[in-house]
């Protein structure tokens, strides 16, 4: 693909090039929906929901009134004895973090200010490896009245498909320890995951915990990878979105985030009693 390729224009052309469909989806839906019951607002008698349906603004009035009453009730109970707070306090900006400015920009003091460096990329899943992997099978507990617990350790290589920051370009290995509870579609899997990325001048490592079940596939993970070697003192604050493919080897991770210096990260907040 040439450097002058217009991606936006190419996208529009590609998306508008839709092959014809045979209408089978609509035909199948037409066969099924007449016998499919519709959902109604069951907490209201049908004639009431019909009446409100013609005057939707009444919903807003009713909900607003209910909220006002609830807030007033809670507020009168909790407001008494509440410690006074300084209304002027606001979270301080972590030293070193500035509004967008070119790297190496000099502030009034003449000191260089480092700014977080944005990155994005795509990782493709690879095959599971046997090194470091154990599949214990765990103990299958009697399912009647007790959950099945199956422990598993998987090691899988992730291939860097594309990453915008060369410091994060390398080979990545994913270690997953999973506990599976239950069986079939009701199963829940709780996983502790560590990513180890070996780049040219150093390495990165970070861990996160996630879950997956019938409602969620564990995507939208946010975590931090710590740099070592020449990247010592740097941290990659990132979000990873998981896109499962047809099998475990065909999945994709989309990653976005910032490379920051350790001093640029805000301290973990301590709860105030």
């Amino acid at each position: 693909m040439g450097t002058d390729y217009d991606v936006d224009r190419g996208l529009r052309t590609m998306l508008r090039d839709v092959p014809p469909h045979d209408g089978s989806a609509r035909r199948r839906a037409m066969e099924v929906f007449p016998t499919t019951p519709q959902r109604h607002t069951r907490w209201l008698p049908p004639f009431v929901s019909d009446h409100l349906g013609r005057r939707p603004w009444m919903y807003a009035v009713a909900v607003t009134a209910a909220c006002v009453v609830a807030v007033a009730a809670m507020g009168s109970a909790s407001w008494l004895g509440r410690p006074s707070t300084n209304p002027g306090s606001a979270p301080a900006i972590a030293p070193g973090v500035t509004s967008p400015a070119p790297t190496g920009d000099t502030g009034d003091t003449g000191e260089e200010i480092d700014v977080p460096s944005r990155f994005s990329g795509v990782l493709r899943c690879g095959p599971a490896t046997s090194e470091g992997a154990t599949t214990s099978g765990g103990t299958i507990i009697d399912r009647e009245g007790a959950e099945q617990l199956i422990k598993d350790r998987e090691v899988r290589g992730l291939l860097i498909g594309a990453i915008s920051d060369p410091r994060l370009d390398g080979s990545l290995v994913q270690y997953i320890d999973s506990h599976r509870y239950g069986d079939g579609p009701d199963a829940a899997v709780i996983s502790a995951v560590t990513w180890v990325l070996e780049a040219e001048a150093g390495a990165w490592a970070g861990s996160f915990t996630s879950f997956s079940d019938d409602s969620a596939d564990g995507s939208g993970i946010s975590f931090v990878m710590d740099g070592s070697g020449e990247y010592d003192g740097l941290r990659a604050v990132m979000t990873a979105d998981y896109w499962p493919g047809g099998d475990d080897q065909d999945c994709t991770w989309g990653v976005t985030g910032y490379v920051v210096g350790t001093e640029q990260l805000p301290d973990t907040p301590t709860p105030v009693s």
Partner: protein
Amino acid sequence: MDADLVTRAQRGDQAAFAQILEMVDDRFHGFAFGILRDMHLAQDAVQQAMLQIWRDLPMLREPGAFDAWAYRLLVRTCQAESKRAKRWLPALPHPQEDPIAGAAMAMVADRDELERGFRHLTVDQRAVIVLHHYLDLPHERAAEILGISVGTARSRLSRALKALRAALEAEARNGATTRVQEAV
């Protein structure tokens, strides 16, 4: 979408709903295919969305918001279908040396690279691109359909396009490596 038609369908008027399905059929297929890049999957997603629309239609308070609400359901069924999909596209051979045939092949190869790069994106990223580049919707409408803020819609589109460009660069690097290896 005609609000009166929606209201009648909400009350169980099957003829009215059949009319709605006919009106949205092509648009839904184009949208679902844009996300899933597979017509069989798109048809399944559209069928599921149509049934879900019928089932949940009485819960839609504002008939005038039908379009945004229906597309939101369609995005969800596309997400569900994508989880069942297995993706692998064989790469096209690189354009030949003949400049005329090469130019035509180059266009096809560019399109192939774009398809492959697009498939690297998550369904959420594809959805925001399809809303913007296929339906030509402004950020406000895309945000309404996706159920997110306008700012998030803007940033999601920006990140999606950035991820796409990164994927295209990676594909180009892989292709260049292959050509160098073949030349050696």
